[in-house]
């Protein structure tokens, strides 16, 4: 009767094999370790896409399996990015400051170095003092802990408040959206301690690896992203395939009934909400060093809604669907908005995709919701089942 987790879920194996193959091919074609056919910037795009796939499967677990349409997971993603960005920016600025002060006749005191770093980082918002939240910015280990703790704790507190008072359905969506908006608005302020709308920048420069070319760094981050996606996929597949998955789907379908079975629904929701928030934070921490810059606009509610769109287009309730959706839509989006798509001349008017891509996305999204509620993953399922 009993089977191992993997043998129960052959699709996990298929996914891991495909991801491994993809990583291998990209590595071979890369500038850093291979033939140099794929540019470094495209490697970064692919690496970022893998991070987006990771947050998409987190979103799929919380929405597709547990029925909580969170419009706040991109906020957790951003918080993870900010947490790692603080260290990256601090450590890099420290290197620069120490170098520039080395020429002084009298060596600087520790406080002078810290003040100089503060002036470098916060000069742009008219300050030089380190806010309290930067207390651990000089320690990579502690900031890595923050990547997990900050989104986790925020999700825990917010989720506890929201689920406790039985906020469900669209109410919860709106509440999470409000949370995201509040966070974004807060970060937009100059005195937020995170450089207001300037955000954190220069994150692609990894302290200690100044000599390493970006081509190499990019492929390392690509591997790290692929590994994180692989680990995240396994982790979530394990969660949703067992009895917990069964309870989660039951909560999605009829929360009240699950309660009468004796399950404390709120704990389950809180568990899923928090754990996915943590994974989102990790995805963000991998994403932003590849993007190079993070600012509050990234956290704006619209980003979280796009996340839901990816998952819906990819197909909810199946992890690979989320991956397909995130990869497909985000790559397509950068192709269209990056000017990659050819304009369509109609004679009287020329459709420029930079202007019309969002219209196309909006309309196709409506179409998917109406006609393919199972998304691309659903079509995929049908194809697989038809072939014996």
């Amino acid at each position, binding site marked *: *009767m*009993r089977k191992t987790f993997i043998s129960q879920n052959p699709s996990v194996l298929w996914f891991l094999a495909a991801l491994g193959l993809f990583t291998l091919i990209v590595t071979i074609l890369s500038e850093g370790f291979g033939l140099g056919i794929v540019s470094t910037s495209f490697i970064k795009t692919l690496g970022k896409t893998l991070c987006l796939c990771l947050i998409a499967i987190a979103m799929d677990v919380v929405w597709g399996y547990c029925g909580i349409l969170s419009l706040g997971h991109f906020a957790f993603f951003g918080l993870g990015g900010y947490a790692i960005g603080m260290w990256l920016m601090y450590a890099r600025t420290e290197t620069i400051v120490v170098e520039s002060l080395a020429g002084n006749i009298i060596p600087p005191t520790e406080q002078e170095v810290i003040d100089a770093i503060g002036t470098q980082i916060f000069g742009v918002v008219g300050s030089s003092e380190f806010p309290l939240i930067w207390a651990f910015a000089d320690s990579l280990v502690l900031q890595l802990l923050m990547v997990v703790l900050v989104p986790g704790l925020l999700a825990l507190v917010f989720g506890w408040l929201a689920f406790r008072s039985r906020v469900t359905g669209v109410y919860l969506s709106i509440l999470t959206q409000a949370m995201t908006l509040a966070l974004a608005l807060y970060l937009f302020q100059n005195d937020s301690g995170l450089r207001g709308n300037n955000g954190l920048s220069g994150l692609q420069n990894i302290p200690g690896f100044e000599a390493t070319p970006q081509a190499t760094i990019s492929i390392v981050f690509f591997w790290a992203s692929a590994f994180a996606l692989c680990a995240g996929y396994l982790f979530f597949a394990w*969660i949703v395939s*067992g*009895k*917990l998955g*069964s*309870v989660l*789907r*039951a909560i999605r*379908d*009829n929360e*009240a*009934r*699950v*309660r*009468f*079975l*004796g*399950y*404390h*629904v709120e*704990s*389950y929701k809180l*568990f899923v909400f928090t754990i996915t928030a943590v994974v989102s934070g990790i995805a963000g921490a991998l994403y932003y060093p590849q993007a190079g810059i993070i600012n509050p606009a990234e956290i704006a509610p619209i980003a979280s809604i796009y996340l839901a769109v990816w998952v819906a287009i990819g197909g909810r309730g199946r992890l690979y669907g989320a991956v397909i959706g995130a990869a497909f839509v985000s790559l397509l989006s950068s192709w269209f908005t990056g000017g990659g798509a050819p304009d369509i001349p109609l004679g009287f008017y020329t459709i420029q995709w930079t202007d019309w891509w969002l219209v196309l996305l909006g309309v196709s999204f409506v179409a998917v919701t109406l006609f393919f509620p199972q998304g691309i993953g659903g079509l995929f399922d049908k194809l697989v089942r038809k072939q014996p």
Partner: protein
Amino acid sequence: MNNTLLEVDGVSVTFDGFRAINNLSIQIAEPELRAIIGPNGAGKTTFMDIITGKTRPDEGKVIWGERNISLLKMSESQIAQQGIGRKFQKPTVFEAQTVRENLAMALKNKRGPFDVLFFRSNPSIEGEIVELAEEIGLQDALDTPSGILSHGQKQWLEIGMLLAQDPRLLLVDEPAAGMTQAEREQTTEILVRAAQTRAVVVVEHDMEFVRRLNCKVTVLHEGSVLAEGSLDHVTANQTVIDVYLGR
């Protein structure tokens, strides 16, 4: 009664000025089979809502078990964990999941998220599931998605899920609705058998079904008890006749 399992005492509840339950007092012993009848709007479903924690009464007490615990401060899931199971009027099974998954979920086990996350099935648990499936006649449909079961089968599955919880008190809301004659008989059998070891409260419209249960009957009207006793006793009561036929 020293074997009283549930005592509802002087409970009232009001919805926007409408008094759905009015100073209601009922005692259920263990084991006992009890039928609750009454016209529409008598407060039968609200009565169950109060016991299971879905609705909070404005006043009154609901006392449970030997240690006289009040149920009013507990959440739905805590009440369910105390050993109170409920079957809804409309069959509510998790249609996207198989019969096996439905039963496994209901099976009496630790309910915390981490217990469930690290839960691993074993042969004795699987055996219990098969046993339950046999009792409700679904042993051949274990791996069928429950959404494609017939209406009666869903009702049974839900009763099966109730039994899987191994509750001390079963609240059953109109179990026979939409069942064929044969199905009704089997349902009666299951309920009567269950009531040998635990308390079973059945809310029913169908007098024929109630008669077959052959148990003590409580008549609710406008949120309070109108009459109590055997079916013959209460049907002979003039007020009950007025309530049922008078309008």
